């Protein structure tokens, strides 16, 4: 099959690789109909996530048709049309039983590696380095999906791929980020980052009862999308002083809660390869986590900083004094996608939201190398790229 493979820093290519096969009795094989490139894939592309190997298949946002099931699969059948959540969850461990599927205790065969970086290991993830298990990703024609009865959700009749694909990651991610603010109704929420996750966070904050959402970015097309598609008030941080603007807009109080949908800057310098160096403290030359620091300082006393953006290692100059002295709460985590699939699918069916609004580019799998560059550089008003394995490549 053809698959988008990481070949080195800033190098991806679509290669011919063997088709996936059943490795565990609960697996299914999915023929992928639509997939996407995530903002966090750009960290892999940029060489900033350790433990990548040449040939790793990328991609963790994918959906398609079940073509084969393992002998212990009971719910899914060949022919079912499914969206696959990006964290891999066994369903049986204590974390999964508590609904914390991105913390599955069993699904990372390389747990030892993650432990060295983070203390304990989270769940395995599709296509996201050997730190999270070395699972092949879904920017490909087929994917092997472990725990097929636990993860994938069937797509109801009448919904297109583009309407449901983002249940795999970015819609639940934005939703969980908003949910983590603990909204009671009427609050003002500020969102740093108007990329796809930020846009879903804005939408979700309104769905969850926020009175006002203020969105911060610098790219005109992203600010326009936040304003026109999501109803946010927007601030361009290259044009205004964000903290001053936020204070003025909130009567001097600050936003009640703040969402960081920016995360580790894409030009965060590389870290040493985890296989060799994981036991040492990672001496990362850090870029200043501008959005996070600003969110902390800008937040109203007693508020929550909800961190959706991906961070990998360590940051410096962290305003711990602000956290302690002003009773701020930090909430974060990789999304527990599984618990949001059904409720958010229902919202899509009811027409409360059409997630396809974030899509700016529709390309074929073979366009992936070009697409990574376009997405990274935000050229051509790029916001979100979806890839179809069977489409013809762009001219």
């Amino acid at each position, binding site marked *: 099959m053809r698959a988008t493979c990481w070949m080195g820093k800033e190098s991806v290519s679509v290669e011919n690789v063997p088709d996936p096969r059943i490795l565990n009795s609960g697996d299914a094989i999915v023929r992928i109909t639509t997939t996407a490139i995530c903002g966090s894939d750009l960290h892999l592309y940029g060489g900033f996530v350790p433990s990548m*190997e040449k040939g790793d298949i990328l991609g963790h946002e994918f959906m398609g048709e079940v073509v084969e099931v393992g002998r212990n699969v009971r719910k899914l059948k060949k022919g079912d049309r499914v969206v696959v959540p990006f964290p891999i969850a066994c369903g049986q461990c204590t974390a999964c039983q508590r609904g914390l599927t991105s913390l599955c205790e069993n699904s990372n065969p390389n747990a030892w590696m993650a432990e060295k970086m983070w203390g304990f290991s989270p769940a395995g993830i599709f296509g996201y*380095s*050997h730190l999270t298990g*070395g699972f*092949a990703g879904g920017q490909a024609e087929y994917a092997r999906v472990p725990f097929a009865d636990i993860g994938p959700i069937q797509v109801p009749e009448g919904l297109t791929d583009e309407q449901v694909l983002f249940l795999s990651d970015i819609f639940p991610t934005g939703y969980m980020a908003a949910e983590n603010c603990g909204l009671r109704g009427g609050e003002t929420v500020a969102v740093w980052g108007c990329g796809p996750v930020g846009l879903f966070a804005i939408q979700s904050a309104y769905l969850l009862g926020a009175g006002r959402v203020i969105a911060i970015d610098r790219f005109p097309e992203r600010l326009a999308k936040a304003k026109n598609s999501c109803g946010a008030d927007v601030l361009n941080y290259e044009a205004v002083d964000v903290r001053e603007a936020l204070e003025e807009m909130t009567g001097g109080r600050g936003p009640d809660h703040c969402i960081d949908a920016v995360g580790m800057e894409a030009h965060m310098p590389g870290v040493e390869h985890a296989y060799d160096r994981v036991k040492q403290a990672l001496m990362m030359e850090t870029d200043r986590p501008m959005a996070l620091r600003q969110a902390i300082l800008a937040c109203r006393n007693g508020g929550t900083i909800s961190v959706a953006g991906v961070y990998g290692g360590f940051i410096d100059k962290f305003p711990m004094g602000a956290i302690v002295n002003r009773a701020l709460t930090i909430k974060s985590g990789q999304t527990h996608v599984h618990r949001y699939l059904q409720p958010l699918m229902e919202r899509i069916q009811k027409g409360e939201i059409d997630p396809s609004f974030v899509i700016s580019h529709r390309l074929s799998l073979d366009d992936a190398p070009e697409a990574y560059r376009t997405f990274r550089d935000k050229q051509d008003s790029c916001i979100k790229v979806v890839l179809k394995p069977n489409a013809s490549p762009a001219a």
Partner: protein
Amino acid sequence: MSDAIHVRKAITVRRPIGEVYRAWENFTEFPRFMAYLDSVENTGPRISHWRAHEPGGNSLEWDAEVTEHEPNTVIAWRSLEGGDLNHSGKVKFREAPMQQGTEVLVEMYYAPRSGGLAGLIGRLSGNDPTQVVQQDLRRFKQVMELGEVVRSDASIHEKMHAAQPSEEPVAVNQ
């Protein structure tokens, strides 16, 4: 002996204490989750014969006897004279709080038999024998909670491999 390795590791398994205890009583199943262990046979009351291999292919064999066993509390064994490895193990069991299952605390001891040999586990794992024991425990947890060891496209290979499908046979215990 300076090459001796003493490892203590704990894991919580979401299964009842009786089931977990019986799994550790059943030495013949250990190769399902213990790295480099090929087989364990019961050869008499309290006596068993163990076979393992090093990555390079060298095989090792030894006999062991059960030294302690108290249901749902502890099971312990040690190797007998004359084998390739000096090894003992002790496993303690405790109910975990909040209905989370069973806490398993494992102590493993390995020492080389003849001079000049690095301990089996030490050599296999580089500098971190704790890691091998911990991986064994993780695989034990998977076997108990899921019925099989969880595999990824990369982990099925003994050596480093890209995260993509392959047609090679799956390595044992991977």
